[in-house]
């Protein structure tokens, strides 16, 4: 094999921050554009590795839908440590390094003509938003769009304006809940599983796309089972620690799978037998 060091898988390419917007106390939206003028070329559910030189590198889901005529892409990032803090410090015009897109994605072709039930727990809305916006751009090609959103408390809700807009659309059914309400919250209370009985779905014709914190999956999956949704129509995205993004460093293993290349999006029946998946 001929080696070209310039083509190192570990070399990021530059991208520039165009805009940022606060979504909640700890989460902000970042709009980037690759400096080389090319399209990121991601599919809904994929992630990229973001470098802030001098600080480090971390994986983030692309939250925007792939749009052929826009080179910009969006990340929504929660402040939690060194790299995420450094990204929050960036100002428009500042540069980062990106690698990817990496990993598996939601099979949008397969979802066409079918209903989709989105189940978003907390930051899980970030990757699902890419699929949701894709479907909304090609609204005619998909059946019902049902979105369940659960957040720990009203202060941590993200994309609130967009979710409110969605609520007004006749062709989107959206239900939201918070685990712990405050005085101002007038909506539904309770964990996300409590929303499931409220939606009436056709299990024969529905695909599920689900992303949330590790604790969420088991409960929601058993809720899906109650609704008779077959395992091979449920897609989940699983986050693990990731250092390389290309199947080498070992950090992201789920039993024998490397979730950076064989995931993060998995069809549920394929990982159901794995002990470390859920």
């Amino acid at each position: 094999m001929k080696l070209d060091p310039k083509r190192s898988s570990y070399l990021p390419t530059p991208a520039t921050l165009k805009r940022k917007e606060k979504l909640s106390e700890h989460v902000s939206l970042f709009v980037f554009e690759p400096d080389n003028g090319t399209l990121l070329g991601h599919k809904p559910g994929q992630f990229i590795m973001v470098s802030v030189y001098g600080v480090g590198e971390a994986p983030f889901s692309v939250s925007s839908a792939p749009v052929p005529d826009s080179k910009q892409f969006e990340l929504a990032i929660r402040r939690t440590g060194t790299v995420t803090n450094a990204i929050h410090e960036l100002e428009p015009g500042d540069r980062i390094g990106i690698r990817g897109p990496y990993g598996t994605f939601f099979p949008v072709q397969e979802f066409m003509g079918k209903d989709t039930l989105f189940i978003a727990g907390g930051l899980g809305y970030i990757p699902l938003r890419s699929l949701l916006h894709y479907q909304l751009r090609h609204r005619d090609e998909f059946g019902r769009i049902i979105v369940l959103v659960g957040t720990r408390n009203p202060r941590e809700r993200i994309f609130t304006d967009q979710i409110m807009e969605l609520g007004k659309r006749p062709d989107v059914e959206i239900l939201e809940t918070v685990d712990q309400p405050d005085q101002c919250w007038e909506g539904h209370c309770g964990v996300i599983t409590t929303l499931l009985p409220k939606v009436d779905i056709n299990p024969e014709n529905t695909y599920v796309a689900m992303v949330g914190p590790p604790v969420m999956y088991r409960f929601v999956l058993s809720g899906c089972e109650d609704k008779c949704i077959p395992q091979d129509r449920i897609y989940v995205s699983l986050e693990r620690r990731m250092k390389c993004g290309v199947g080498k460093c070992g950090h992201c293993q789920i039993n024998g799978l490397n979730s950076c290349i064989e995931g993060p999006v998995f069809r549920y029946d394929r990982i159901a037998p794995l002990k470390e998946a859920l």
Partner: protein
Amino acid sequence: MTAYTVSMEHIPGLLEKWAGELDVHVPEQDPDGFYNFIAWTPETEIAWDYDLAYNSLKRFFLPPKEDTLSFDMETMRAEPVVDAPKQLLFGVHPYDLRAINQLDQLLEMGEPDVNYLARRQNTVIFALEPSRVAPTSFWASMGYDRVDLGYDLYWTRISPSSFYVEVGSTAGEELLLAAGALPQATGMEREAAKRERLRVRARSIKQGGLKYPWQETPRLLDKSWESPIWRNNSKYCLSCGSCVTVCPTCYCFDVREEVDVDLKKGKRFREWDGCMLPSFALVAGDHNFREHAMERYRHRYFRKGKYIYDKIGELGCVGCGRCVRACTSRIANPKAVYNELWEATYDEA
């Protein structure tokens, strides 16, 4: 297949030549009695009959710490760093070469790891038939007593003063003939080399290894997720990571950065990491996917005995026995664990 006979007295001259072109590393016995690969000098006494090199050879391809990028924080631009010295490893045992062949596959798979592959391509490997078997080794029973590819030359000592040297590549042959022509090996010498290999293999087998065919290991593990052995043994685990650090087939790494004092430029580097260390699978929100020593301990045996097998069709443990020696709690021995699982699964049934 071309083979030559090389007499012992011819070797210093050859080493002198090779060392002019490449960094030559050979096995040596240190004052404490441990064998290890070191940089050759004319004073080095090569330990031809070493049983096991204390450190594995992966460090020549995947150094404990290696730069992968250099970056400029003012322009936020980066360049790849790919450092690959021309090197010769002389005296690599078959099981260790099989470990290297395994890394070759795993690091080339999918997105090739340029840093690893560049080092590998610049490395000449002279394999050496072992003449002794380390007390902790069990490579023959794991199917790792021979190697058919990955070497440039394969040396077998067939008398106190001579070697049978089989050619594996043109680069190897050129180096061998660098100091002049050599006699082609005779059929008798080839037979002698084969006898030597069988003798050593028999030694390894006699010493004891897996009590069942190694190919059964993945299936055995399929039945062993709930075995009490994981909890019983891991009670003594210090989570020190020694077992994975010394292992020739472990290649997990962490990625970190270092910034120059002027805060303008810096380097990204990778560093050996290991699934036995507590924070290996820790993510944001303080969720740890393998929080308990038991889970990490079990993962290592599954990785060696099943997950790697599922990827490349051979076991991720070559039976060198380094981990057996490195573990102060005496619980890191794959042979012992797999045998115990086998007995629990099949003998009592």
